[in-house]
């Protein structure tokens, strides 16, 4: 990996009872920090951006020392050129979209690796320039916030749960924009979230943060699907994430069908081609376990599978055509249905409970 993605974080910061104690090196283009709320994600980003000073440690970006307590270096936030995209956008309410975006634009022309119009095109906000932030929808506001951070031509982008304030449908519409940014702009990104699906959708490496400490790291898919991640998954919410090929897509019926082995998974219609891989996420709470396949219910999906793990927690692991589904149930349900290893069961899933992470076409 080239040097420009090299970031060294060695940060100690106590805020009241909470202590953030992080020591890690980042090498990838997109790094995700995953953790429940209160795990120190935002504190970490604030330290990197310079709006908060660590008590001790150093922050290195490439060969550039941004912070070092031993050398008494602390580059002020306005000199760091680190773009920061906040959960609530934090657009300036008294300025138009255009003035918001131009706020951080440097007057001295840099090499100009990309133009402002490229940013506006990528995010599809060129029509909104004369509006004020209170005239924008949630999704538009967040795209403007992203444009504002990009327009300053940052060396590094920090994203603090940029999708958290958006509802499910909007989320899957913004993720493609983030993908564009990842692919079109040569800027490393540190992405902070509590949603496993977002980390998987974007990150090349993920760090798990719990009570201010890093407890695991690795390639996101491996890290988050490994059994060792179960306790963490319990904490931040389990999501089942697969990429499945399209079997059939019917706009008139309003559904798209994906192949999961020899069975079909019905999701709300997306514009795609047969054979394309579609990444989806299903929350463990959104799956119902049934012992019967023929149920008079509205849910579109009843998948046959075999239990291959019941843990002391309330997560049941079910193998469906080689895909492992984690399902969250109560102790009572587990005992009443006598769920145990090897038992054949049916997973009931509403089409609308299946979130498409991004649609490549």
């Amino acid at each position, binding site marked *: 990996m080239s040097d420009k993605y090299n970031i060294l974080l060695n940060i100690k910061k106590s805020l009241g009872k909470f202590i953030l104690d992080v020591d890690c090196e980042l090498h990838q283009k997109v790094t995700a920090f995953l953790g429940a709320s209160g795990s120190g994600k935002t504190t970490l980003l*604030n330290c990197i*951006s*310079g*709006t908060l000073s660590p008590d001790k440690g150093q922050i290195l970006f490439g060969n550039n020392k941004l912070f070092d307590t031993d050398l008494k270096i602390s580059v*002020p*936030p*306005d*000199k*760091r*050129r*680190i*773009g*920061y995209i*906040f959960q*609530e956008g*934090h657009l*300036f*309410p*008294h300025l138009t979209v255009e003035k918001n975006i131009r*706020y*951080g634009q*440097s007057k001295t022309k840099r090499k100009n690796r990309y133009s402002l119009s490229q940013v506006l095109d990528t995010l599809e906000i060129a029509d909104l320039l004369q509006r004020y932030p209170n005239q924008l929808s949630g999704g538009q506001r967040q795209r403007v916030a992203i444009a*504002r*951070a990009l327009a*300053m031509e940052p060396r590094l982008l920090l994203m603090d749960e940029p999708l958290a304030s958006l509802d499910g449908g909007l989320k899957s519409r913004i993720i493609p924009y983030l993908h564009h940014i990842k692919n079109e702009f040569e800027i490393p990104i540190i992405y902070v979230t509590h949603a496993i699906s977002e980390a998987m959708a974007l990150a090349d490496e993920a760090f798990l943060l719990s009570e201010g400490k890093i407890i695991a790291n690795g390639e996101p898919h491996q890290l988050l699907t490994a059994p060792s991640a179960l306790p963490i998954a319990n904490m931040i919410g389990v999501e089942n994430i697969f990429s499945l090929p399209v079997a059939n897509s019917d706009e008139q019926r309003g559904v798209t069908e994906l192949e999961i082995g020899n069975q079909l998974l019905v999701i709300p219609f997306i514009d795609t081609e047969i054979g394309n891989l579609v990444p989806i996420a299903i929350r463990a709470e959104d799956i119902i376990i049934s012992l019967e396949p023929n149920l008079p219910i509205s849910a579109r999906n009843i998948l046959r599978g075999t239990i291959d793990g019941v843990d002391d927690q309330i997560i049941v692991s079910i193998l469906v055509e080689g895909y492992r589904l984690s399902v969250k149930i109560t102790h009572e349900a587990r005992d009443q249905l006598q769920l145990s290893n090897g038992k054949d069961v049916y997973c009931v899933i509403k089409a609308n409970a299946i979130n498409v992470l991004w649609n490549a076409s």
Partner: protein
Amino acid sequence: MRITPAEVSALVLSIKVALLSLVVMFPPGMFVGWLLAKREFPGKTFLNTLVMLPLVLPPVVSGYLLLILLGKNGPVGSILSNFFNIEIVFTQFAVVIAVSVISFPLLVRGIMTGMVSVPSELENAARTLGASPIKVFWTITVPMAYRGIISGGILGFSKSLGEFGATMMVVGNIPGKTQTIALAIFQSVQLGDDITAYRLVLISTILAFVAIWMTERINLR
């Protein structure tokens, strides 16, 4: 029922003094308001109390303290009179000082309230976008706090316009020289000249009414 030259000069002096006080006190008012709204430092509560003190002290007390301070034998007055041969008390300049001390808390209050309402997250966001603290102040804090700043200015100005107690203590009541509207009202009542008193009362009531009405309009928008 015509307004006499003495009344006109009282009115003009009041407005002149209030305007001058506003212009002179505005920069320090902005600075102190910003300090109290946005900074943490030791002695902050003390500074806040000191600034707000004239708001609750009887104006006569503030005026008397000023008189001691600025008088020929006072710590400030003696320096001015010994080294520069300047005497402040009983001059229009002293009216400005007296009026400024009394109206300063209102000015600062308004500015402070306006600035407190500007989320520090937005100011931090501006910093990450490359803005220096001074640029953040002028492009984020001030424009977003403008309602509080303007209403602080108007309230302070109106307070100066009608100030009585402190002015009376520091400058006395010299018609045509240091006599403001409030002092003129006091004098005409003392002399039993009710007609003049009514006229001046009407004028000052209208001025006060317009000022408060304007701040309310700004706050509503």
